């Protein structure tokens, strides 16, 4: 009995509010598509080298899921989507604080940890040696949608159904392939630069096989008027951030769009 009361008191102590995080700098939270997992970390690190007092938290997920969360009131100041459709929806629903800005063009690759993929075509995936194939969920992940388009274009979507496994977003899809649980993953080119995926091989899917992955970001209504959100949006369009995006396998909209 006495012991139990002691435990209860310990619980009471835990409830006491945590001390507010130190630092008088500015703070924003960004919602970013999962294909940005490494590139965005690098851009934020680069930004913070110049502005060490600003704090930028990044939450990664599939673009569709993040859009739903923002529409339900999630406190994100900026939304980086893997395609331009979702930011446009945000604008259409009156939940944006500005117009979408294209920042990069993404590509999809076939990646495998165990099979040499360098001379593989999409059509070849029908061969049983490729085993399970991981793609992102086409319902709410732009990379999944593009993977589906490429497989349909190759005419093998229907036959492959029983061998497809679906990642919740493109980073999880890459994880399925990286851990070997799926022999092949159709993933973002920006993710294969990760050292954890360096052991595998990949081949680019021809961009003509799928709709362009026009990556766009937009200021949310919650972030409108936030000076740090505006500064960071500006920074992402600058030379240094663009250099990082290219290093992580993105193409730039001007160069690619023509």
């Amino acid at each position, binding site marked *: 009995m006495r012991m*139990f009361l002691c435990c209860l008191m310990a619980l009471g102590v835990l409830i006491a509010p945590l001390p507010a995080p130190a630092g008088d700098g500015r703070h924003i939270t960004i919602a970013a598509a999962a294909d940005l*997992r490494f590139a965005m970390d690098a851009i934020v690190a680069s930004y913070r080298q110049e502005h060490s007092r600003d704090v930028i938290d990044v*939450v990664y997920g599939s673009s569709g899921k993040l859009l739903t969360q923002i529409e*339900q009131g999630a406190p994100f100041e900026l939304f980086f989507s893997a395609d331009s459709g979702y930011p446009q929806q945000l604008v259409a629903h009156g939940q944006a604080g500005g117009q979408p800005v294209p920042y990069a063009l993404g590509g999809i690759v076939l990646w495998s940890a165990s099979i040499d993929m360098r001379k593989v075509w999409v059509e070849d995936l029908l061969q049983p040696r490729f085993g399970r194939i991981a793609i992102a969920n086409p319902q709410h992940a732009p990379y999944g949608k593009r993977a589906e388009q490429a497989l349909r274009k190759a005419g093998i979507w229907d036959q492959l159904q029983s061998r497809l496994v679906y990642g919740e*977003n493109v980073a999880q899809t890459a*994880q399925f392939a990286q851990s070997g649980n799926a022999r092949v993953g159709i993933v973002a080119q920006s993710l294969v630069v990760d050292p954890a995926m360096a052991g595998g091989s990949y081949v680019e899917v021809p961009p003509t096989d799928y709709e362009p992955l026009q990556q766009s970001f937009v200021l949310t209504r919650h972030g409108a008027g936030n000076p740090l959100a505006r500064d960071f949006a500006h920074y992402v369009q600058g030379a240094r951030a663009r250099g990082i995006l290219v290093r992580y396998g993105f193409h730039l909209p001007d160069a690619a769009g023509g």
Partner: protein
Amino acid sequence: MPLLSPQDLQAFGLTLRLAATVTVLLLVLGTPLAWWLALTRSRWQRPVAAVVALPLVLPPTVLGFYLLLLLGPHSVVGHLMAAVGLSALPFTFAGLVVASMLYSLPFVVQPLHNAFESVGTRPLEAAACLRAGPLDCFFSVALPQAMPGFVTATVLGFAHTVGEFGVVLMIGGNIPGRTRVLSLRIYDHVEAGEYHQAHMLSLCLLVFSFSALLAMSLLRPRRRQRG
């Protein structure tokens, strides 16, 4: 490499705070509910008991989905809260508390219900004959006798809240410092291929869960074997 990064520690602290808040609130609200369930002869007893048990069998995503709709800014609750100047519950710590309370409800109420039931009405009737008021009956007779149930309820409620994933993912939004609890942090680490950090945190949770269950059986007064 440090064992736990500051962000990991932040998730750790947040998880403990969430679990403690939820456990205390559930003990306060769950005790009268369990008491009523144990003693009432109302025909509502069984339906209410079934509702309390629902989170045991519902997929957490179903619970998270309905809570998101029920508490979101476009819902009745959301409009009411906006009217009094409060922000909507999803993606806030308070939202996590509400969701976790529902999610862990059966783990607190059921042990209490069973404990009160096994105390039975006879000690209470005896106390009443000795002119104890209803409150006195409850605090001097029922509560001490139901103590093992309270220990179980506290440990299970706390541990179950620490371990939840689906509901907090749906309603929390994985926001650092506010709703990014341990289980979400582990999910993040795995997705980023940071297996080392995922291992560290998972190990913490494993050790914690085992200790909680062990502590529960140690805290319980041992029953005598029947001859």
